[in-house]
């Protein structure tokens, strides 16, 4: 009896005093291992009479259980302490910089092109494309600018050297040849826009030899200038993100439209930043008109049945106006400081539900 009680007392004290897991483990072996003190006691049960065993059995087994539990409890405590001690060693200066976040940008031309495309897609316009290198026929002749037409010289055309087969191409001076390609390949009704690169042999502070246009074309049986006006008004309101925008439609002249007109929007240029929807200045933003019957004819569309309107605007100019970019030339210079400042985030794609811009 006394043996068991004193053994338990001694073991309990030593378990409580164990300073680390190895010490506790050797204690466990010394007590509960094959030849441990408690195990040795358990072995004595076999030599006892049934009556003695009835008394000693529960005592020794109880001892074994309590010691095992005490060891387990102590083990948990030691583990927790060891973890705390390890964690205390693992402190990091969280003010140190993490590996750099990469931040790329979308060019304003691409962003504005997406914005315009989204607005016009919502109005049912599909996107059409054509090559940058064009034929004289598509760029001029079928747009009612025959050879020697005075309007041709206003286009400052880049020509390619004659090819081996004698043909001579040019760099398209406007996106209008895409109209020609669309009319030649599709049956009306047609409702397309054609954004893309265009080229003029002209370079100064406000002109670049390459720039971007977006062209719109609607051909059906009943389209008239009233629809054109509505499309341009809705486009401008949506694009500039203002509830109302004052617009002025002026008669003008283009060889490929008749009647032709130019479109100005009202703005206020008195302050440092241009404002739309107010003010007393007018800014030209588009050329437009009803597609010339000759153009329809030359593109295989019967002008007695179908008619339509077309409009064109400069994407770079729209970007400059909306986002306050003062100069055109840096658009194509790729100064990363400019790109970071005027560029757009990868995830800022314009959407119907999220809006055009932040």
């Amino acid at each position, binding site marked *: 009896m006394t043996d068991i009680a004193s053994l338990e007392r001694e073991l309990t004290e030593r378990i409580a005093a164990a300073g680390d897991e190895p010490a506790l483990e050797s204690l466990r072996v010394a007590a509960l291992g094959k030849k441990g003190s408690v195990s040795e006691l358990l072995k004595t049960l076999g030599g006892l009479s049934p009556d003695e065993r009835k008394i000693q059995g529960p005592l020794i087994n109880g001892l074994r259980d309590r010691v095992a539990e005490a060891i387990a409890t102590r083990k948990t405590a030691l583990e927790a302490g060891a973890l705390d001690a390890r964690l205390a060693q693992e402190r990091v200066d969280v003010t140190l910089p993490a590996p750099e976040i990469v931040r790329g940008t979308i060019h304003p031309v691409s962003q504005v092109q997406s914005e315009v495309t989204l607005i016009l897609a919502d109005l049912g316009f599909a996107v059409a494309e054509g090559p940058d290198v064009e034929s004289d026929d598509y760029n001029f002749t079928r747009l009612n600018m025959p050879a020697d037409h005075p309007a041709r010289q206003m286009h400052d055309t880049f020509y390619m*050297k004659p090819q081996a087969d004698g043909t001579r191409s040019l760099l398209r001076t406007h996106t209008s040849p895409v109209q020609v390609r669309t009319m030649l390949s599709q049956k009306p009704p047609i409702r397309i826009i054609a954004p893309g690169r265009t080229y003029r042999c002209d370079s100064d502070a406000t002109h670049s030899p390459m720039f971007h246009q977006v062209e719109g074309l609607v051909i059906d049986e009943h389209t008239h200038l009233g629809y054109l006006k509505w499309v341009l008004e809705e486009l401008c309101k949506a694009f500039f993100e203002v509830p109302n925008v004052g617009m002025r439609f002026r008669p003008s002249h283009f060889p490929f439209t008749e009647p032709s007109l130019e479109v100005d929007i009202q703005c206020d240029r008195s302050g440092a930043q241009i404002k739309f929807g107010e003010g007393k200045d007018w800014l030209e933003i588009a050329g437009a008109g009803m597609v010339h019957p000759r153009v329809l004819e030359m593109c295989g569309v019967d002008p007695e049945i179908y008619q339509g309107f077309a409009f064109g605007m400069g994407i770079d100019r729209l970007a400059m106006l909306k986002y306050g970019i003062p100069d055109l030339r840096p658009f194509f210079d790729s100064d990363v400081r400019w790109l970071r400042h005027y560029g757009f985030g990868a995830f800022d794609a314009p959407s119907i539900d999220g809006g055009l811009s932040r």
Partner: protein
Amino acid sequence: MKFSLSWLKDHLDTTADAGTIAEKLTSIGLEVESVEDKAKSLAAFTVARVVSAETHPNADRLKLCMVDTGKETVQVVCGAPNARADLKVVFAPPETFIPGSNMVLKIAAIRGVESRGMMCSERELELSTEHDGIIELNADAVVGSPAAEALGLNDPVIDVAITPNRSDCTSVYGIARDLAAAGLGTLKDARVAPVKGGYPSPITTALDFAAGTPIPAPMFAGRYVRGVKNDPSPDWVQKRLKAIGLRPISALVDVTNLIAHDRGRPLHVFDAAKLKGNIRARLARDGETVKALDGRDYTLDADMIVIADDAAARGIAGVMGGEDTGCTEATTDVFIESALFDPARIARAGRKLGIMSDARYRFERGVDPEFVLPGLELATKLILEFCGGEASEVVIAGGVPEWRRAIAFDPARVARLSGLNVSESEIIRILKALGFAVEGTGQLRVTPPSWRSDIHGQADLVEEIVRIRGLAEIVATPMPHPHAVARSVLTPAQRRVGTARRALAARGFHEAVHFSFISRAQAAHFGGGDDSRQLENPISADLDALRPSLLPSLLAAIQRNQARGAAQVTLFEIGAQFASGKPGDQTNVAAGVIAGEPPRHWTKAGIRADVMTAKSEMLATLEAAWGQEVTVPAQAGAPAWYHPGRSGVLAMGPKHLAYFGELHPRIAAAFDLKGPVSAFEIFLDAIPEPKTRGTKTRPPLEISDFPAVERDFAFVVDAKTTADAIVRAARGVDRQLIERVGIFDVYEGKGVPEGKKSLAIAVRLQPKAKTLTEAEIEAIAQKIVAAVTKATGGTLRA
């Protein structure tokens, strides 16, 4: 096209002011570029009288003047040699802004003497470049009155941009006609009464052309005026010309300028004494030269028309007269020329010779064929009036070509094309006011006037109605929408471009947009620079070749950024590269460049400009654009602008999907680049079209709950053996069971024989039907070893 308000009122009876007129002009398609009102901009300048002019006490070349401004007499120091007592001058008080010198006048001490104002030269008022002396006003100018009035400048000047189709509005009369039609006044009668000739013209005109259409010059009229005196033209003519920025020269020259602007009719006046024999219009001979009125010699070609006498070409027809036969103060006998020329020829000649003249401006747009003779009569009348003399009879070669063409016009076209409802009677009224002849009702027969060569069809007539009514009247009409909910309108190819763009930006690249042309030398490094991709008329020598790749533009941009001190630069562009200078020979490419070391970081993290980073960026972008996992293996064989050993190609059969790698050091040197550079090019058009399936539903998900097993193997193989060969051999053992083969170690060096390398793979087995036993795993492992050994000649590393 410039004109003054008072000039307009010669032809238009109106009470409208300049502002109202300007607004109406813009609304009817004659876009006003500026309205200049000198009475307003020169309001501070007044008439003053010099009371006395003494020599400055401290400077011989300066004068000390006392000036009566009407309010007071002030002291002014003046440097003009013509400052003298009793002169009427233009005076500017202190605090006046002087436009010609772009400064505000202050009270100042000049050489120790105070000066309280200034007497102005023409240059200081921006009237001309004249600065030799101060302006001398007429003696009757009223002291204290506005200087603009005394200068005859109290007449607003309107500048209108004339579109190329409106030749009829290159004249003040034409503009007045348009305004009258738009309801802004009444057009005055401007018919010209013929001047009777007193004798046959000693000089005749002729048209000397081979048969053919169009005739280079259908009509050539003229007449002789003898006994003229070519003095300066009257004051009112001079004022009028000055107001629109023309310099008065002499009465004879001023008459032609006046009629050109007033009626849009260019004329030429020869000094008859300098002509040899008769004159004719003919084509120039190649290499023939003419000294023109601008004093320069021009060499002509056989496409151009000249006016020649019996000896030589005397003028470039429709463009500029010749100096040798021009009028001077000594001229006494003249021959007036009034002709018609083929507009296209005049345009070509003007363009080739680089001459922009008032005559060319009008002839190339097409002048009124019916005004050849009235113009000649008007010129005769004014010359007789200004210079005296006697006019001969008129001589005419050729005649007015047929210009009348009737257009069948359905008035309903107006509403159909424009959406604007205009009554038939109003349509007829507008057309008639613009000079059109209109017959019939319901279906009209409309003949445009001789001055409207631009009107050919119904759409042109609709434009006339719409512009005169004003586009403001057109009501914006909502366009019927084909679908209640907008549909996607982009083609798969267009979507790929957008996704690639966003993916690249998300991965840290900045989007650039560059010109499609580069220098021929740059193009040559990338397989270009051949004749077929050369521009004929580049804007500069370093932008003369269509780019065969996007990389040269990007590398040049990297160089510019490095020159500005940028460290690591990551750029991309999506755009066309060109295989030739023919339409359609272009492909859409997404190209990216990583240049320079990453910014130093304590973790050593950062993007490396090496081949594997280029590969990974390329794959990520390609996968985003394609919309599926890319399983196409990379292989060696990138083009010559890449490092031959550290670059690769992704190809599907003969089609190249992408290149990637480190830049060839020779190219880096050619572009003057610093540090490491890697790049990739993805050929977006080569990405296979997505398969169109009838359904959006996905196939059922098949996953296995049996435990996967991973086994590692290391092989010693030839250093040239590719990782792909080993991976493919291992995978090929059991495509059902082997889910993935990864490479986790590549080693060359100690412990591996020379010319060999050790490649370690991890093979993951994923059973689908039951848990694998050790024996099954062992059997697979042996097959893998056997397969790799067979395929590569390698051995399992001990």
